[in-house]
């Protein structure tokens, strides 16, 4: 059995002249939380819709759980929440789930279990139209959890949740992943993705710009040194951390190295007669990566 749960190959969707998704090739592996990261309008939701068979690709191919996206056999093994929940407003939350459970021949026990998982049991008897945005979102997640899906596809699951609700949602996602659940999670919230995801794909303007583990994307930490004179400091830094790891930005030395190298560097600079005015250790966040790759894409540095 393959460990690749979702595989897309040059997946493309055009609406007239507009390219919503442009040759996206990504892989989601069994048991991981895959973060699909991108700004609003980047093509995340369209890609997820194609994975669920709601939208037909213009070209390219996709495989979900080893089969064609949207086929009934696949959909019964996938739980999803796409672009906000969609429920009958005149039914209670519980009745809405029971209707959906009828499509999968699931019993009421499954409905109650899903409600419990999202902590909505107390209000499950109230009409959906009386729910707050956060409660609607939680009911949407409950619907996605019905029937033990092998894959969860959640599009912006924390939309509308307050900070406590967002933290709870992250805990739920982590707990599901701990049980072996494969989750594909789209978001434009960088911190959210960084906190819960194992691997990340960054999409902008319909193109997948980069894909890898969070650690791979963040790369090594860096040190920033403000020194004088800069010309004398450059060969010293190159000797200590290697020339390939040295660059200058705004008259400061940027060194791709662990912060633990700071004492060696400062000592070498002083010995060489370089004044060291400031040393800053900097961890590269996912936000740094995100803006680096999206800005590079915008300026044409990332090849199509």
């Amino acid at each position, binding site marked *: 059995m393959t460990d690749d749960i979702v595989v897309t190959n040059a997946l493309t969707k055009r609406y007239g002249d507009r390219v919503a998704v442009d040759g996206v090739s990504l892989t989601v592996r069994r048991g991981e939380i895959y973060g699909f990261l991108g700004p609003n309008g980047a093509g995340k939701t369209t890609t997820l*819709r194609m994975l669920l068979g709601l939208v037909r690709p213009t070209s390219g191919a996709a495989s979900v759980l080893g089969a064609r996206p949207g086929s009934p056999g696949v*959909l019964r093994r996938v739980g999803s929440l796409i672009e906000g929940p*969609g429920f009958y407003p005149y039914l209670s939350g519980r009745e809405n789930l029971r209707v959906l459970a*009828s499509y999968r021949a699931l019993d009421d026990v499954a409905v109650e279990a899903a409600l*419990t*998982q999202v902590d909505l049991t107390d209000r499950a008897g109230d009409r959906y139209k009386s729910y707050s945005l956060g409660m609607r979102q939680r009911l949407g997640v409950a619907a996605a959890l019905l029937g033990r899906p092998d894959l969860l596809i959640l599009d912006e699951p924390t939309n509308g949740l307050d900070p406590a609700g967002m933290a709870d949602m992250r805990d739920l996602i982590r707990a599901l992943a701990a049980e072996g659940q494969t989750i594909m999670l789209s978001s434009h919230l960088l911190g959210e993705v960084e906190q819960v995801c194992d691997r990340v794909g960054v999409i902008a303007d319909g193109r997948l710009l980069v894909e890898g583990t969070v650690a791979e994307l963040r790369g090594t930490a860096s040190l920033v040194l403000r020194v004088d004179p800069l010309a004398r400091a450059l060969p010293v830094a190159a000797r200590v951390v290697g020339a390939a790891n040295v660059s200058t930005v705004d008259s400061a030395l940027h060194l791709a190295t662990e912060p633990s190298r700071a004492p060696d560097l400062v000592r070498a600079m002083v010995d060489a007669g370089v004044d060291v005015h400031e040393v800053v250790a900097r961890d590269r966040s996912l936000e740094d990566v995100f803006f680096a790759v999206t800005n590079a894409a915008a300026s044409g540095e990332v090849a199509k």
Partner: protein
Amino acid sequence: MSGVSGVSRASEVSGVRGLSGVGGVRSVVATVVPGVVRAELRRLVRWPALWVLGSVWLALNLTFGYVFPYLTYRTGSSVGPGAEASLGQMLPDQAPLAVVQGMPMFGGALVLVLGALAVGSGYGWGTWKTVFTIGPRRGAAIGGTLGALGVMLAALVVATFAVDVAASTAIGLAEDQALVAPGLTDTLSGLGGALLIAAMWMGGGVLLGAITRGPALAVGLGLVWSLVVENLLRGVAGLLGSLETVTNLLPGTVAGSVAGAVGALPVSDPNGTPGVNTVWDGSAATLLLVAYLVAFALATVGLVRRRDLTG
């Protein structure tokens, strides 16, 4: 989300429901009614719009089929043989005709609204998106909706018949008339005709709901067509003979012919009902009506299956 700390998989406490564990009537229903129809029935029976429209239909049927005619009869506005004929139409043996005669126009318009709302609202609420990602094929899901609406229509026709029998019995007793139960053949043809007419109009509403992907435009277009455009075209056809071939094939004309074929009085009769006509005989009208129903259903399924769901 307190449940987070002890997250339990839904499947640990649940399983796929087997038919053997469900008893009695539920077991029978589960066996003979497909899951997609049961799912749709589950939500439709709790839909306020269905009860409102059904109640409005029953009230209109009672008012125009019995209350106004009886008041007219009692106040002497109708005298002589006409009055006797009018009273005869209000007695129990004529109840099947009372059910079918209102369907071509007003009943049809109401069930068209119901069909348009049932499908169009799903796009606005986002429920089609939810249903299409839960498992059934799109064709099966929309087929389930059509099936469930068909069950609702059958219930509505039977309820209308029951109300009409009760009203006609009350009038017969009040006027000291012999109470004759409607014949089985008359009842089956009247109720069958009413169901077929209603199903055709509802199919039209369902198709409009799918085309417009929303309830408001679908309802507006459907009502304008069924209550205004068809009548205008028939009026123009009276002046422009060549248009008659087209107007004879319009859904409303065909529906009216079915009602006329089972015995409802056409609008040209002094005691006739708007929308009822005798343009086609029973067989031709029934075939055309079935053709419309099948065409509407197939067009809806085809449209829903082919189109991207982006909303």
